[in-house]
């Protein structure tokens, strides 16, 4: 049935977008965590414990 | 000093400075002229149903012109930081918005009326006998554009890339104005013209909603 694969594509694209969005959040979070560690290392003296 | 008298004084200044230099009006009129002429290249002018899609193109030209014309609205006030002087002098910051909306609506209306005959000729549309209806539509449409446009000009004046940002913020917001104005203008310029009061009411609702929003949140737009 032709239109079954259109449903298939709709679902796949939909989930791809959600997963891609979550990945972008995760990636941005990791970059920030790396930044936090870098900052902590460079100025250990006065950085407040997070 | 009341809100209205403040707004009147401010409007007087806006109009006087504009008619002294006339730079805003002249550039806007020429811009709309160019856009309308270019639009008319895109189809066969002798087509008999040009009255159906001509007004749409006309209003699109007005929206583009407005999104560029509203740029200097607050940028001019940043020169010499006159915006701070205004904020200190007026009793209610909404007066500043009222005056700028009045000035922008006036300039837009002037541009639109000057363009009407040119548009009628290019798109071979007749508007005899319907001038009052068209005037009302042009006024309500321009007011809607000015209200939303002045609010967003205050925002974009404080951001980078402001020349590109204002059209980007404003054009999607004005989608209802574009649809409503085009529909009313089409029915006015059609073979048997009639007045779509529903559309006029719709435009009035848009104007009131955004004027109220500006009245509630206007002072925060100017805040430092």
């Amino acid at each position: 049935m032709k239109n079954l694969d259109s449903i298939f594509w709709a679902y796949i694209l939909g989930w791809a977008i959600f997963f891609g969005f979550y990945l972008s959040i995760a990636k941005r979070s990791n970059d920030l965590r790396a930044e936090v560690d870098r900052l902590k290392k460079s100025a250990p003296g006065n950085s407040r414990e997070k | 000093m009341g809100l209205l008298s403040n707004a009147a004084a401010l409007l007087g200044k806006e109009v006087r400075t504009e008619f002294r230099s006339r730079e805003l009006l002249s550039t806007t009129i020429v811009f709309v002229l160019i856009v309308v002429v270019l639009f008319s290249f895109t189809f066969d002018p002798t087509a008999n149903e040009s009255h159906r899609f001509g007004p749409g193109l006309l209003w699109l030209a007005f929206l583009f012109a407005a999104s560029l014309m509203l740029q200097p609205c607050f940028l001019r006030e940043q020169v010499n930081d006159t915006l701070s002087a205004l904020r200190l002098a007026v009793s209610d910051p909404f007066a500043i918005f009222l005056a700028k909306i009045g000035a922008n609506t006036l300039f837009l209306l002037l541009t639109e009326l000057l363009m009407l005959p040119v548009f009628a000729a290019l798109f071979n549309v007749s508007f005899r006998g319907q001038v009052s209806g068209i005037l009302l539509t042009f006024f309500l449409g321009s007011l809607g554009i000015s209200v939303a446009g002045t609010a967003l000009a205050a925002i974009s004046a404080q951001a980078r890339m402001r020349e590109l940002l204002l059209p980007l913020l404003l054009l999607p917001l004005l989608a209802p104005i574009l649809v409503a104005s085009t529909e009313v203008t089409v029915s006015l310029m059609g073979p048997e013209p009639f007045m779509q009061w529903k559309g006029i009411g719709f435009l009035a609702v848009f104007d009131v909603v955004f004027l109220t929003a500006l009245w509630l949140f206007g002072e925060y737009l100017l805040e430092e």
Partner: protein
Amino acid sequence: MAAAAEPSIGLRFEKVDKRYGAVYALRNLTLAIAPGECVALAGRNGSGKTTLLRIASCLTRPTRGTLSFSGVTENQNPRAGFVAHAAMVYDELTAEENLLFFAKLLGVADRRRLVHELLCEVGLAERKDSLVRTFSRGMRQRVAIARALLANPSLLLFDEPATGLDPEATSWLTGQLRELRDSGCTIVMSLHGESQVARLATRAVRLDAGSVVADTRSGATFQSVFTFAGA
């Protein structure tokens, strides 16, 4: 110079912070200025002088803390006269048109007479019909001062009024300020180091990194406030 008819205005900063993102322009600033005082603000660039004046003029809101006025009816804007770095007048209008416009906004009665009088006092009577665009820095400062005096304010704020003025304009400015001070106006002015204008001050306060670090009212000498070799 019209004497300040209304009772002079005092103002009080109570633990005021002003934050731009993570940068503190003002940090926990507490300062009380009594009516009629003529306060000079000293401090390096970025010490918070301009921010303090912009908050005092109600143009900017403090992020935290409060600013209160005495001698003003409940929550009524004190309509302070504010002369900043920018002239705050329109280039495309003439000096007279600018003053008439702002007088109309402020609802000043008998505008023409007051504007004419102010223009004479600030020495711009013969240039009243030329556009502000054509004015020099000194002349812009005069128009700005005239604009600030339109509402006959009893609180006047100046942000480095003397910078960029030639000696002749500076002595004119000093004379104007002395007259205003003697007429009971409360004046707060930020100054760039010791200068002829600073000697008018009845009190000097030094700001550093957004807080008060020296105040002649709490013992510091004028000399130390202005030449404080802060860290």
